[in-house]
């Protein structure tokens, strides 16, 4: 039995079926639309694709997977009895259970936050509502410092909405991006008419007859708007586990390297799971698409009787920031999560670990490469714009390649780091770097 029809849940169905042709698989989902690409919602907002396109699988795909899908809310979990209870009182028994309930957008705690027009971007219904609100081209305010906030800004701008963007700090995503990277993004937003308000926070949502009419900021100014987009982080949907009383829960549901919870036969994967990493000894949240799928796959294999370890890969995410394809690899940040409540969607806590590294960087017009250079290896990187070097750098970080032959050159002032990496990669592939020959 699987609770949740997101990336982790569907990956688990696929991997269970790959091992067990006949076993009964039941998938329970609160999401009435079933499985769709949640990251794709950003592009649905901008108008780059239509709603139908968000659904990667058709009915036949699910028939082939021989999975029974029910639109239902699970209200109670009784681990010892291997039972779950649905909203309608029905009880269902499971042999093995995967909790893949994901995460939901954190609410903002200010007066007026419940007024109509205060929006989040969590699911397809949210995206639909935002689109219907943009039809009258209202003014909008967006609050939040991560990827989702920017997706909201971009979606609104694409729909012709005059948008104010509130940043609590002096720049966008300050704990991941450096000053130059943030400036590139902010300039591109401003070029599209976005008005950025630095060091600004929402104090109150102003309304009339239950509808948003504006905001009052913490520095006292009032901005007229009809739509407010909030993306200040996400919260793992761990209540089911928490309320059961017998599953260990921290910020998410704690799981071991086999993705098993503290209760027998119960697994967790995706945004809701706080996964133990044997290398660092820490349990961390990764709210990225790929880890969710990978975790779902491993959990599924283990539910089908396997004994597979989920080894946390180097954090890797590709996103688009103000139209620039950006890849974030490994450890790049400076710690802290000031603009967000906890973790954001499309975010990995690994990025924010403090690297013992020196940054080497190279700027082009709108292409940029920043490497976090450690003692012997590259610990992380941000590749903005041209992605040619993304794969080589990802491999260098992931495989912990010894970069001693080029380290000094990389750290020289104004070093052509892109060329150095490209040449090193070429030598490596040809077997000319001695230790990899």
């Amino acid at each position, binding site marked *: 039995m699987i609770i949740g029809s997101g990336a982790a849940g569907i990956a688990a169905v696929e991997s269970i079926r790959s091992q067990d042709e006949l076993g009964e698989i039941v998938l329970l989902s609160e999401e009435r639309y079933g499985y769709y690409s949640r990251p794709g919602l950003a592009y649905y907002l901008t108008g*780059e*694709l239509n709603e139908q*396109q*968000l659904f*990667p699988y058709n009915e036949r795909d699910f028939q082939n997977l021989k999975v029974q899908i029910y639109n239902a809310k699970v209200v109670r979990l009784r681990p010892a009895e291997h039972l779950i209870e649905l909203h309608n009182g029905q009880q269902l028994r499971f042999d093995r259970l995967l909790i893949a309930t994901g995460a939901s957008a954190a609410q903002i705690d200010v007066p007026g936050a419940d007024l109509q027009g205060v929006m989040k971007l969590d699911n397809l219904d949210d995206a639909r509502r935002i689109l219907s609100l943009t039809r009258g081209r209202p003014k909008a305010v967006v609050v939040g410092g991560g990827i989702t906030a920017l997706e909201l800004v971009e979606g609104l701008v694409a729909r012709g909405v005059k948008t104010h963007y509130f940043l609590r700090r002096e720049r966008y995503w300050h704990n991941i991006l450096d000053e130059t990277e943030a400036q590139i993004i902010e300039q591109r937003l401003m070029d599209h008419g976005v008005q950025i308000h630095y060091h600004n926070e929402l104090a109150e949502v102003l309304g009339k007859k239950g509808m948003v009419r504006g905001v009052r900021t913490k520095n006292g100014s009032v901005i007229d708007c009809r739509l407010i987009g909030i993306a200040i982080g996400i919260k793992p949907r761990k209540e089911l586990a928490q309320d059961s009383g017998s599953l260990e829960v921290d910020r998410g549901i704690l799981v071991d390297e086999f993705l098993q919870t503290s209760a027998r036969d119960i697994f967790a994967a995706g945004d809701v799971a706080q996964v133990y990493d044997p290398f660092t000894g820490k349990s961390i949240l990764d709210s990225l*698409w790929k880890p969710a799928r990978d975790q779902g796959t491993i959990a599924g294999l283990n539910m089908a009787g396997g004994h597979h370890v989920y080894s946390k890969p180097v954090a*890797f995410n*590709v996103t*688009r920031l103000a139209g620039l394809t950006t890849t974030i690899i490994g450890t790049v940040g400076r710690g802290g999560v000031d603009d967000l409540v906890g973790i954001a969607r499309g975010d990995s806590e690994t990025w924010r670990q403090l690297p013992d590294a020196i940054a080497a960087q190279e700027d082009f017009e709108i292409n940029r490469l920043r490497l976090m250079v450690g003692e012997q290896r590259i610990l992380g990187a941000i590749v903005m714009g041209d992605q040619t070097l993304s794969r080589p750098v990802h491999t260098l970080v992931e495989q912990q390649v010894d970069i001693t032959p080029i380290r000094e050159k990389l750290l020289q002032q104004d070093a052509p780091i892109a060329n150095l990496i490209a040449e090193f990669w070429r030598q490596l592939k040809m077997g000319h770097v001695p230790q990899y020959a």
Partner: protein
Amino acid sequence: MMINIRRFLHGEVARHIARAEGCVVPEASRCVQCGICSFSCPIGIDVRRHALKGESISESYCLTCGECVARCPRGTLSFERTNLFNPLLVPENEV
């Protein structure tokens, strides 16, 4: 502005040959199944399905028009050269 027609045509022909000899190859780890690639394919190839599995677009009728490559917001797709007679030149993730 004067255009050197011969040079222009030569460039276009070279580009066309390069595309005809290549195919679209995905980097599965970048794909989030948003579907922009399939949405923008003029002949309706479900590019996303290939991308998820990390399979190159093997349909011989792919126009290699480049719409999916250009529109993918996450840089998942690229052109790689194929060579029917030299397996060493087949894209890495297909070997």
